[in-house]
C-alpha cells in the first residue's frame, strides 16, 4: 500500500484537493455520464429514481465498475486505472455487507489489516472506531446479532477505519425501519459532519438527501439534471421527478412579461417579469378548488379540471386533477366533503399569481 500511496502525495498540488470526476460508463442500452466535483468536507448526495445510474456512479467511484471514458481525480491523483483495493475510498454498502464470520471488531480491523497495520494495532484502532460509534459493548458480536442501526454504524466504522479520502454511502438508510431511521439519520449526519474528506451518498429519498448532504446532484437516465443546495433544488425544481419529490406542481413554458404560455396550451399568470423559456412552480396548497366557476376577478389563473384521484396526505386530502392543466391540489377533509369531490367530478381550480414562482429554464 505504501508504495502506491507515495506518488499520490507527490502529485498533490495546492487547489487540487477533493474530488474531480467525470464518470462515463457505457453498458449497452444504458449510458451514465455525470460530472461530480466536491471539496474536502463536502457531503454530496446523488439523488435519483431507481435505475437512474446512481449506484453505477458509486461503483465507478469505488473502482468496482470500470470507466468507459472520463476521468477520476482525488486530491489531484488520477484514480481511473487504480484497482479498488488501492483507492483511498471507503464504501458503506446498502445492506452493509459486514463479513458474517467476523465479529464487529474484526470487521472494522479488516481494512487496517489489509493496509499492513499489525494485528494488535489494527484491533486497537478498530476498538477506538467502535467506541466513537457508541458500539464498544458490541465489539465481540457477530453481525447477525446486531440490530440494523448497529450494523450500519459498524459498516460506517469499517469504511472510516481505512482513513479514506472519499467516503461512499449507498442508500445508507434504506435497510432501516422508519423508527430506527430517524435516530440513525441524525447520528449519520453528525459523523458525516465530522468527516474531513469528501463524502458522496446515493439515495432515492429526498429527505435523507436534504438532511445529510450540503449539495444535491439529481440524476435521471444517467445524466445530471440538476444540482445545487437542498434549499435551491426544493425551491426551483427543473424536472417533474424533482418537483414530485419536493411536492410542487411544475410546468415549463414561454414567458412574456407576466404571462407564461405552457407548451401544452394553457397560460399561467406570474408576478415575475420574464422572457423566454421558464419553469413555473407552485405548491398544491396554493390551489383553491370550486365546484362552480368562481365570479371573483382576483384569480386570473383559472382552469377547468377533472378529479382523477384522491388520497390522504398528512391531515389533508391531496387531489390529483386532470384536464386543461394537470395539477395536484391540497385541501382540508372538510373542504373535500363540501365540494363533494370524487374521481370524475368536474371542478374549477385557481391559483393566485403571488403564490407561483417562475424562473428561467
Amino acid at each position, binding site marked *: 500500500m505504501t508504495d502506491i500511496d507515495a506518488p499520490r502525495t507527490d502529485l498533490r498540488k495546492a487547489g487540487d484537493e477533493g474530488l474531480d470526476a467525470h464518470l462515463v460508463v457505457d453498458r449497452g442500452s444504458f449510458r451514465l455520464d455525470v460530472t461530480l466535483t466536491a471539496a474536502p468536507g463536502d457531503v454530496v448526495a446523488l439523488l435519483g429514481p431507481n435505475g437512474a445510474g446512481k449506484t453505477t456512479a458509486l461503483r465507478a467511484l469505488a473502482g468496482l465498475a470500470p470507466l468507459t471514458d472520463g476521468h477520476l481525480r482525488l486530491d489531484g491523483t488520477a484514480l481511473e486505472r487504480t*484497482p479498488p*483495493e*488501492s483507492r483511498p475510498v471507503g464504501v458503506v454498502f446498502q445492506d452493509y*455487507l459486514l463479513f458474517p464470520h467476523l465479529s464487529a471488531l474484526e470487521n472494522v480491523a479488516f481494512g487496517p489489516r489489509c493496509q499492513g497495520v499489525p494485528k494488535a494495532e489494527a484491533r486497537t484502532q478498530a476498538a477506538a472506531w467502535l467506541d466513537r460509534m457508541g458500539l464498544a459493548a458490541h465489539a465481540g458480536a457477530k453481525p447477525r446479532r446486531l440490530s440494523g442501526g448497529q450494523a450500519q454504524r459498524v459498516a460506517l466504522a469499517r*469504511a472510516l477505519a*481505512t482513513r479514506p479520502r472519499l467516503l461512499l454511502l449507498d442508500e445508507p438508510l434504506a435497510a432501516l425501519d422508519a423508527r430506527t431511521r430517524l435516530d440513525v439519520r441524525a447520528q449519520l449526519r453528525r459523523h458525516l459532519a465530522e468527516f474531513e474528506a469528501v463524502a458522496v451518498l446515493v439515495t432515492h429519498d429526498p429527505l435523507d438527501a436534504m438532511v445529510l448532504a450540503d449539495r444535491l446532484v439529481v440524476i435521471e437516465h444517467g445524466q445530471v439534471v440538476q444540482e445545487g443546495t437542498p434549499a435551491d433544488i426544493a425551491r426551483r425544481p427543473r424536472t417533474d421527478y424533482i418537483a414530485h419529490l419536493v411536492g410542487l406542481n411544475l410546468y415549463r413554458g414561454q414567458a412574456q412579461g407576466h404571462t407564461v404560455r405552457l407548451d401544452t396550451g394553457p397560460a399561467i399568470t406570474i408576478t415575475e417579469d420574464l422572457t423566454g423559456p421558464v419553469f413555473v412552480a407552485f405548491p398544491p396548497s396554493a390551489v383553491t378548488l370550486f365546484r362552480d366557476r368562481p365570479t371573483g376577478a382576483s384569480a386570473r389563473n383559472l382552469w377547468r379540471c377533472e378529479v382523477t384521484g384522491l388520497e390522504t396526505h398528512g391531515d389533508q386530502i391531496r387531489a390529483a386533477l386532470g384536464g386543461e392543466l394537470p395539477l395536484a391540489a391540497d385541501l382540508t377533509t372538510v373542504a373535500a366533503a363540501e365540494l363533494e369531490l370524487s374521481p370524475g367530478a368536474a371542478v374549477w381550480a385557481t391559483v393566485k399569481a403571488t403564490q407561483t414562482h417562475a424562473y428561467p429554464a
Partner: protein
Amino acid sequence: MTSLDEPGAAAGPRTGPPRRRRVGTGGRGRVPLPLLLPGLVALAFLLLPLLALLVRAPWGSLPDQLSSTEVWQALQLSLVTATAATAVSLVLGVPLAWLLARTDFPGRGFLRALVTLPLVLPPVVGGVALLLALGRNGVIGKFLDSWFGITLPFTTTGVVIAEAFVAMPFLVISVEGTLRAADPRFEEAATTLGASRFTAFRRVTLPLIAPGVAAGSVLAWARALGEFGATITFAGNFPGRTQTMPLAVYLALQNDPDAAISLSLVLLAVSIAVLAGLRDRWMTGA
C-alpha cells in the same frame, strides 16, 4: 390433520365418499399402490445386499481376518491415498471452482461441462486416458520419464493420481455451487477495504464457503476411497504399493471369500461414518 384441512373439503358436494376415506391416513391421503409397491421393492433392493453382507459376515474369524498384514496394508494404503487425493483435489480444485464461479471468459460453460466429465465417465476409461497421458510412453509421461526419470503408472503416486482424477470433479462441483450461492459482493466489500482479490478470497470467501468445501471434500474422499476402475487400470494391483481396499476385496473374492466379506464390512463401516458426518447436510435435508 384431517380431510377438513384440505382445500375443497368444505366445498360441500365435492367432498363425497372417496374423500372421506382419507380420514385417518395422516391427512396426506392414501399412498397409491403403483407408487408404494415399486418403492418398497427399491428399498429392499438397496438394503438386502447390505443385509446379506452382515448376515454372511464371518463374525467369529473377523478379528483374525482384519489383523492380517495384507488387510492392514490395503486399508492403510486406501486411507493414505484417498486422503492425499482429497488434498490434491482441494489444492487444485478449489481454485478451479473459483475460476468457474467468479470469472467470465469465452467457453466457460463448455469448460465446466468438461470438468464434470469424469463424473460420468466410466472410471476404466479414465484409467486408460491417464495411461495415455502419463504412462511411460504417454503424451506427458514420455517427458517426465526422459527428463526427470519420473514414472507414475503402477506406483502409489499413480493411485493418488487416478483417485484424484475421479474424485476432484465432485469437489469442484460442490465448491462451485457453494460459491455461486455465496454473495460475490462480500469480495467487493473486501477489495474496497484494501484487500487484494486473493486476500479477499482467503479471508472472506473461503470462510464463507467452508461448509461447501468440507462437504465436497468428504464426497471426494469417499469417491477416492471406493475408486476401482481407474486405479487398477493406471496403477495396477500390487499389494502394499497400489492395492487399495476395493482392489483387495475384488481379489480376495476369488480365493478367500471370507476375507472379501471382512474387507467389505470395513468399507461399509467407513461409508456409514461418512454419511453420519454429512447427515446435517443431506440426511436431514428435505
